[in-house]
């Protein structure tokens, strides 16, 4: 699908989405959470609000793994939405996976949270704008020597932001796909075999990075760096 087709489809789909979204919300308001979840699932394209409400519908059915999965998806689209962050944290607290889903090292944790705080498009714009500003500051140094010191300071400052945005962008693009554990308890094994040694347990709601895909088995890595093979049925990709 090219860019023009996407825009045309969105122009047609968005009004329909808004209408169906209200219908699904009405089911939720009526306490018919299973039906509301099905209605939210059918909506396309999926927006942050759709994922958020779908997460709520699963939460109300006591399926916290699915709720966390959809809150994570919503956070990808609206990373600083306080409602999404609150519900995601609340569901994670319920399952006791708040700490498990964070890297144990403070610096890595800070960086991961910083990268998550912007969407891919936002990081792209930050990178582009700071590149333009940095190069304009360089041009100012050359053609306006009277204010060279000011331009140099501005160029260095903006270049720092540009480097940060570029690294975040690369991190975001090159990082492996993530998944959420959906079953109450699953086991990560040393090999993609049902009888292989159990290396560690994965609890519902835990976030893992998918390092390798071998059909029925996925080689996953937890935030604390532990790696193992887990059955595909136990997780769902964010």
């Amino acid at each position, binding site marked *: 699908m090219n*860019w023009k087709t*996407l825009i045309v489809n*969105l122009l047609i789909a*968005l009004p329909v*989405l*808004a209408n169906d*979204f209200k219908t699904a*919300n009405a089911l*939720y*308001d*009526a*306490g018919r*959470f299973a039906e509301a979840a099905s209605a939210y699932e059918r*909506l396309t*394209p*999926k*927006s*942050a*609000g*759709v994922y*958020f*409400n779908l997460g*709520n519908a699963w*939460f*109300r*059915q*006591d*399926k916290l793994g699915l709720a966390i999965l959809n809150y994570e998806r919503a956070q*990808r*689209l*609206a990373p600083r*939405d306080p*409602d999404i962050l*609150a*519900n995601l944290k*609340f*569901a994670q*607290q*319920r*399952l*006791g996976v708040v700490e*498990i889903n964070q890297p144990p090292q403070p610096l890595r944790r800070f960086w991961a949270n910083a990268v998550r705080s912007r*969407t*891919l*498009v936002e990081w*792209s*714009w930050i990178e*582009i704008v700071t*590149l333009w500003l940095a*190069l*304009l500051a*360089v*041009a100012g140094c*050359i*053609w306006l020597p009277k204010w060279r010191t000011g331009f140099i300071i501005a160029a260095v400052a903006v270049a720092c932001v540009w480097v940060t945005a570029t690294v975040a962008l690369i991190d975001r693009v090159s990082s492996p796909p993530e998944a959420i554990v959906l079953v*109450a*308890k699953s086991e990560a094994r040393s090999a993609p075999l049902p009888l292989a040694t159990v290396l560690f*347990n994965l*609890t*519902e709601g835990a976030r893992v990075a998918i390092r390798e895909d071998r059909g029925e088995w996925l080689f996953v890595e937890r935030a604390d760096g532990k790696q193992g093979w887990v059955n595909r049925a136990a997780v769902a990709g964010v």
Partner: protein
Amino acid sequence: MMRTTMNQARCSCASVKRSGGILLVALLFPLAAFAQVSVTATVDRPRIGFGESLSFTITVQGSQSTPSPAIPKVDGLVFAGPAVNTSMSIVNGVMSQSVGLAYQVTPTRTGEFVIPAIEVKLGDNAYRTEPIKIVVEKGAPQTDLSQKVAVRIQTASQQVYLGQTASLNVLVFARADVPLKGFAGFNHEADGLGYKYDPNVKSGTHVEGGVSYNVFIIEGVISPTRTGKLNFGPCVVKGQLAAERRSRSGDLFERFFGRVEVSEVPFTMDAVPIEVLPLPGEGRPADFSGAVGEWKLDVTAKPGDVNVGDPITLTIKVSGNGNIDLVPAPKLTGLDEFKTYDPTTKTTKNELNSAGERVIQQVLVPKSAGVKRLPDVRLSYFDPVAKQYKTAAHPPLQVNVKPGAGGQAAIVSGGGRVRPEEKLGHDIVYVKGAPGPIALVFPPVAFWLFNATPVVALLGALAWKRRVDRLRGDIAYARRSRAARNARKQLVAASDCQQVQHALQAYLGDRLNIPASGITASVAGERGLPGAVREIFEACDAARFAGASADVASLKQQVEQVIDELENADR
């Protein structure tokens, strides 16, 4: 006795490392003099051949100087010496010092002898050594290694319980004169005993019957996996013996220093019976799940002040001596008032798995307000030392659970209720009324275009600036770069031969960076310009000064060709 001797050996090692501190402590020597003095006598070997000598040493611990004692006469033995050797060491701030008096004892006949007790006087006190028996045989003495090296086991008891972790050390006693340098292997049989050992062999010294031994200790534990009368052993410890061999080659260096060769010698130990008892049925608690050892519980909970629906993390730490792998998660009673999730467990243990710690974190979510205490935590285990079952229990922790928003107890379970008013920290935020942002993708072409544009623009501007700067600073370059353009303009406007000639002169002047008026047909020849230039100059001069007819258009064309030729030559 052996442990004391090993400590003394460690002290000796420490004394080498801390030799720098000896001077300082030596100043305090008078304060420590005569504290805990002991006197012992040893021989390097109790059995020698006639014609050989042995070393008899009197060691005074706790003193750094002693007068030479009177050695009683022993019929058949001749004492020579003594050679005095003093030493001092400090361990953990405690100083120890000793003085050794070494005598060389040479027999004058064969037979059995007793070196009697020898009295050593230190100040007002007198100390006596133990008598030592020695044997002098005809010819070479019995030097069978089996009489000099012995392998034994050391264990608290030869009766252990199933699942118990008990220490079992293998000790190798080697007489001081045996040049045992280390070990190359340790083979053992311990079927059903679950034996593990530390490959790092400890060492010490031991004196028995007046004979000094080096002791090598292989520390290990057994953790039986079945009951019955089992055997530990037989064992084979491969020792490395150093033997000095004189070289017969002509190498002066080797002949002087000799050469040390290491040979492996097996030392064996017969099987030792170990009886493994089943855990007694009498007094077994109902919740006993197989933990054996000495265990203690430590329980904490955070936070202690919550609202209904907020999670409380109960942390249970089980630690102690025994096989931690056999310790199950402690039982929690009174869970009805809480919603629970699978606990997370972290286990750490030492290399021999004889001690360990297990931390269990259990998330509890109170279902209603009014919950005052957390569940009881109990762990039943069998204590093999006390030979009875015990239960470690922690008193229930107090918590304060407050109702949710509006003073009502919230319902924790997922479905069944619509809550139009929801609050952060108590319940999830209610559903959104608008779909919100959808997934947008930055088109890759646009992304790279936006990135490349400023870079290309800046590079272009820099190139342009460089050219402008050069045009301003380099007159020759500036004249040459605009020569063709200016000349062509003049050519277009030229209407007679003189103007054509001026245009050509202006071009050549700019190109060669010389005054245009100074360029003539002869200068053109000197400068190596094409012959057409000279022809144009001559034709123009003829028309101007001799009245010859000239085709101005043809001249213009020739000048154009000259300009093109010279410009192309530059490229």
